């Protein structure tokens, strides 16, 4: 029934906070160290503002780091690519360099949220928010990215495999900032892919996320990396699955065994989107699809 003009239920207004906008990394670190746990970094805000509205976070100080120019941009360096933490998901998706060198990262960036969200969402925010479903994590795991973290005591480089500790938890402690992500250039004859499976085609957290890369020479797998999202407390590498493929001539039987192993590597939970059982089945399906697709790609390259 019409409620006679009473105000609509509160959609959750934002709590009060002090807003600061440092223009150098040094100043940001100073503020973060001074205010400790009561301060929170704001990048694109597409996770943080939603969490604040839901009452999950209420920082006393919001430190907008978007005015620090050195945290943004994509550049070629040391036989690889460096992506600043503030680089937006759309910038990554539209980068030619990323598309050519890291197709799985390009693909993942194209299916994260919506075009509007991708214009704000940053790669740093995606990683630091540490959702098990973070779309950019599986590609960065297969490319063995290294994350440069700065704190009051200086810089530290952490392999992405050691970065995630649990849902919402990373090795970043109070007073630290993720500065940039270094991704080494893949070896010759390496093919990679990212597949996202959700209930809808857009605007969806994944039910299962798979990224895979294979270095193949004459159908022989010289190296392989498989990463899974949304099926464990953090994004993970599926190492027993990798062991089923590495060093072998890749055929349907090998792919089948790898898919079974990947399902065992996963530790999914049941939630509103899917049951654990269903997720494990989908791991199999999507690992198979990913590996088959990489094999086809390498065969085409050999033929062409």
């Amino acid at each position, binding site marked *: 029934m019409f409620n006679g003009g009473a105000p609509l239920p509160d959609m959750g207004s934002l*709590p*009060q906070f002090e807003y600061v906008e440092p223009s150098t990394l040094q100043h940001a670190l100073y503020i973060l160290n001074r205010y400790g746990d009561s301060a929170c970094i704001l990048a694109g805000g597409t996770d943080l503002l939603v969490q604040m509205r839901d009452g999950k976070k209420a920082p006393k100080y*919001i430190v907008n780091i978007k005015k620090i120019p050195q945290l943004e941009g994509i550049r070629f360096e040391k036989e690889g690519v460096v992506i600043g933490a503030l680089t937006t998901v759309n910038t990554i998706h539209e980068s030619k360099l990323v598309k050519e060198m890291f197709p799985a990262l390009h693909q993942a960036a194209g299916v994260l949220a*919506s075009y509007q969200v991708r214009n704000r969402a940053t790669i740093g925010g995606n990683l630091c928010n540490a959702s098990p479903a973070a779309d950019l994590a599986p590609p960065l795991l297969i490319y063995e990215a290294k994350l440069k973290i700065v704190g009051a005591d200086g810089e530290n480089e952490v392999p992405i495999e050691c970065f995630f500790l649990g849902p919402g938890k990373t090795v970043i402690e109070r007073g630290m900032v993720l500065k940039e992500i270094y991704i080494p250039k893949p070896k010759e004859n390496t093919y990679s892919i990212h597949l996202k499976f959700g209930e809808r*085609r857009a*605007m969806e957290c994944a039910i299962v996320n798979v990224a895979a890369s294979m270095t193949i020479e004459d159908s022989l797998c010289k190296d392989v990396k498989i990463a899974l999202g949304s099926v464990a407390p953090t994004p993970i590498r599926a190492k027993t699955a990798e062991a089923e493929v590495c060093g072998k001539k890749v055929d349907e039987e090998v792919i089948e065994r790898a898919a079974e192993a990947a399902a065992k590597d996963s530790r999914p939970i049941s939630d509103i989107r899917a049951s654990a059982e269903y997720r494990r089945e989908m791991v199999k399906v999507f690992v198979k699809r990913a590996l088959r697709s990489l094999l086809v790609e390498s065969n085409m390259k050999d033929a062409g």
Partner: protein
Amino acid sequence: MKQRIKLFVNGEAYDIYTETNRTLLDVLREDLELTGTKRGCDSGECGACTVLLNGKPVNSCLILAPEADGQNIVTVEGVSRPNLPLHPVQEAFIEKWAIQCGFCTPGMIISAKALLDRNIEPSEEEIKQALAGNLCRCTGYVKIIEAVKAAAEKVRDGRS
């Protein structure tokens, strides 16, 4: 905490004194009374609040007012001006009956305009991708996609 910010909205400059915990959407609707931009979910899901920020479509409900300080914003009110012809996207939405209740329309118009600004020959797939963040509760998507195709044609005809 309150802060003074300067916004450039639809070509006009505004000085605003606002609490920092308000969003760009709050300021547009409540302070500037530009109520064309709608509030659907206040959490980035529906796209009703889409505006152009420095030419790019974004969810104004996910941007703090102070973050918008000094930036250029275009709302649906600025897509065309009074006494000027409508934008091809607006014309096409009317001609193709792409509006039912109209609540999603301002966001749709902004997303579609932004798409045509970067690509005057979008495929159906590209149109769907560009509008994936705009929900229509009346589910009038078929007409909306037709309208964007028609608008693209208008834009191309206008240029040639």
